[in-house]
């Protein structure tokens, strides 16, 4: 498979109609094709907004966000996990997956759902799922169309530790073989330590990149000890700004 | 003075008579007081009579006959013989009824309108064919027919007399009146199509007041028939205040329809017309009756 797109984020200013202080002002961020970036930062700093801008959903800002040479809004659909599950309640779980890829066959649906621990739930409406199950369904939907760009807003929340490990494995497999570019927002340093090859810490208002750390050891070959070190490093960093 | 409530269509031609009646003081003379409940259209009159809100309305004889047939005890005393007619533009190529073949006729009311039924019967008697098949008919409200005739979107109009009077005043020509058609069909005398209508309960309980009112009405008619002066005050009511030609047309046509006498024992014309209507109009016009219901014309009064 081809590598994921490179990203070039240059936000001159992003202010919400109601806000006075801009959320972003002169933010620059370049992301290499196929890399996985963990986006860290305190609650309310602008992480979700950044993902929305990169996804081309929110176009109300000055500046330019380029995905693979094209304007973000014109780039192909990213795989997006919103901060809430945002499943359409009138579609079954399977229907929600087919929303992302109308051509998704029965088998592919089965396989995808099984990979997030929801085997056999394709015909249930979302309200029959528990909170954590809904989030997993949302993750499955984001992956359904094999997107080249993954934008995941706290994808592992509401999952028990065993499931989190499973999801880590799932993503590791995907990131290494498929090579999509990924932005993952998470408050758990562990997620970054396992999945990312770069961590970006946002802080302040307007938000700025206060730390930009390469996690150089290729994630497949990281030992548990190395992961623990990364984790402690990131936690310490976050503690300073939080 | 006893009070009688009349439910009358606002701006209807009947108001001309009432206005004259009051102007002549004939109500006082006969010891009654008339209260007018204005109504917006004829359907409102029927509702008003049935709900007891008024004592007397104006309606046509088929309605009364059909109501009697259905068990509602209403009766009438004739008020007017005025009928409509077939009207065409002055330069029309239609010179006689058979020329209607292939034309478009605008009919006031609907397929069950009395004039339309009679025209069909007349056409049939002349040509042996069915007018409804030979010509295109369009049905609509009376003013709409005049409007469409004026605009040239129909070739002939079959309308009520006062609408025809207006059309005539604007230069249209009446080809033949319904009375003439009836005559040709063998109804020698014009039938009294419209009459004062009341329930028999009213007639019984208030026979005297009713009689007084009918006396006043016939007196007024006599004056209107004979005396031009009585018309003078009516022009605004007739909507002809500044149109002498229209005024004269309306007055003359009105006079032509005035009922001078009433003998409940002689209803030959009405019975004949009813039978004719029943034969050609069918159940839409007269429900399931074939004969004028006995007692349609009130026996409690004669003039």
């Amino acid at each position, binding site marked *: 498979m081809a590598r994921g797109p490179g990203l070039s984020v240059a936000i001159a200013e992003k202010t919400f109609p109601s806000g006075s202080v801009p959320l972003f002002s002169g933010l620059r961020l370049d992301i290499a094709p196929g890399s996985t970036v963990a986006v860290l930062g305190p609650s309310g700093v602008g992480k979700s907004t950044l993902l929305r801008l990169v996804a*081309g959903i929110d176009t109300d800002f000055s500046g330019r966000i380029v995905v693979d040479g094209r304007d973000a809004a014109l780039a192909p659909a*990213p795989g997006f996990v919103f901060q809430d599950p*945002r499943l*359409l309640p*009138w579609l079954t779980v399977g229907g929600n997956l087919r929303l992302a890829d109308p051509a998704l066959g029965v088998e592919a649906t089965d396989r995808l759902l099984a990979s997030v621990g929801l085997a056999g739930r394709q015909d249930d409406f979302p309200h029959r799922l528990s909170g954590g199950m809904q989030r997993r369904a949302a993750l499955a939907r984001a992956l359904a169309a094999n997107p080249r760009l993954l934008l995941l807003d706290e994808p592992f929340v509401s999952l028990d530790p065993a499931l989190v490990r499973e999801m880590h494995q799932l993503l590791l497999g995907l990131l290494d073989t498929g090579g999509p570019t990924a932005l993952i927002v998470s408050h758990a340093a562990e997620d970054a330590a396992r999945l990312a090859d770069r961590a970006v810490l946002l802080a302040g208002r307007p938000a700025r990149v206060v730390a930009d750390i390469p996690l150089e050891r290729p994630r497949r070959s990281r030992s548990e000890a190395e992961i623990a070190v990364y984790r402690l490093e990131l936690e310490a960093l976050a503690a300073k700004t939080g | 003075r006893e009070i009688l409530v009349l439910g009358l269509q606002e701006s209807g031609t009947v108001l001309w008579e009432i206005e004259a009646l009051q102007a002549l003081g004939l109500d006082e003379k006969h010891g009654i007081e008339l209260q007018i409940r204005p109504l917006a259209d004829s359907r409102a009159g029927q509702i008003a009579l049935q709900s007891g809100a008024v004592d007397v309305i104006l309606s046509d004889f088929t309605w009364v006959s059909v109501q009697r047939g*259905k068990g509602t005890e209403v009766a009438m005393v004739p008020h007017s013989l005025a009928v409509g007619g077939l009207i065409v533009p002055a330069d029309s190529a239609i010179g006689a009824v058979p020329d209607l073949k292939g034309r478009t006729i605008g009919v006031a009311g*609907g397929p069950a309108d009395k004039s339309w039924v009679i025209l069909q019967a007349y056409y049939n008697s002349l040509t042996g064919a069915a007018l409804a098949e030979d010509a295109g008919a369009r*049905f*609509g*409200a009376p003013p709409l027919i005049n409007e469409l005739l004026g605009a040239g979107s129909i070739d002939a109009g079959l309308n009520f007399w006062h609408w025809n009077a207006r059309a005539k005043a604007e230069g249209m020509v009446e080809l033949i009146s319904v009375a003439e058609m009836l005559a040709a069909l063998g109804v020698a005398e014009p039938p009294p199509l419209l009459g004062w209508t009341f329930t028999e309960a009213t007639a019984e309980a208030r026979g005297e007041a009713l009689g007084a009112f009918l006396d006043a009405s016939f007196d007024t008619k006599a004056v209107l028939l004979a005396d031009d002066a009585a018309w003078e005050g009516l022009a605004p009511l007739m909507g002809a205040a500044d149109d002498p030609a229209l005024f004269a047309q309306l007055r003359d046509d009105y006079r032509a329809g005035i009922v001078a006498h009433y003998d409940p024992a002689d209803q030959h014309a009405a019975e004949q017309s009813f039978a004719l209507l029943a034969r050609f109009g069918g159940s839409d016009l007269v429900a399931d009756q074939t004969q004028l219901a006995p007692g349609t014309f009130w026996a409690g009064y004669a003039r």
Partner: protein
Amino acid sequence: MRRQVLEALSLPLLLLLWQALAMIFSHRLFPTPVAVTQEIWLLASEGRLLADLAKTLLRAGAAFVLAMGLGIALGIVLGRTAWADRLFSAWLVVGLNLPAIIVAIVLYIWLGLTDLALIVAVVVNKVPLVIVTIREGVRSLSPDYDELARALRLPFRRRLRLVAVPQLMPFVLAAARTGLSLIWKIVLVFEVLGSDGGVGYRVGVMFQFFDVTGIIAYTASFILVVLACEYGVLLPAERRVLAWRADRA
């Protein structure tokens, strides 16, 4: 199970109540359902009931489809584009409140006393109502799901079908249910004003005789058709489309 029983009971119960009331009051202008049924039979076998019904159904059906289609499309446009909504806000109010009689006069004079004029008049009368209802629905569409649709880059038609329509469904259903009944009522009025047949025309004629049994017979047969629509089309469609909501309850 119980659902079907209650639904099946609804109409008989109404008829029973009607019969009881008619028997208590026993008035010529208040016929019993039995009398009305006989009348329907009579009118259908000997009269023109079926032909009239067909005429009216055709007119009402055509007007319904046109009015709903136009109204939904315009409602969506006005709900989404604020400037258009504002610019035409007064037009809509005027359109809503234009009496049928004026529309009828204007159209009958322009288009003549034709079926086309009648159908156009009904559509003109009904469209503003659909617009208003659908517009409220569009205004209350969830911006969250909008974001989702944008993130997924859903093409317009899929977005409409999968994201917008399910949310608009309650409004469409309200517009359809009220719409069908309004359209038939307006058709009645226009048929009285100028046409050569149809339920409204015949009801007008019957009204001349105060033939209440006949009027009710005609009305009842039309209502039976609407009931058939409701139970045969609308309710099943609604159940299918809103299965997710029922599943939840």
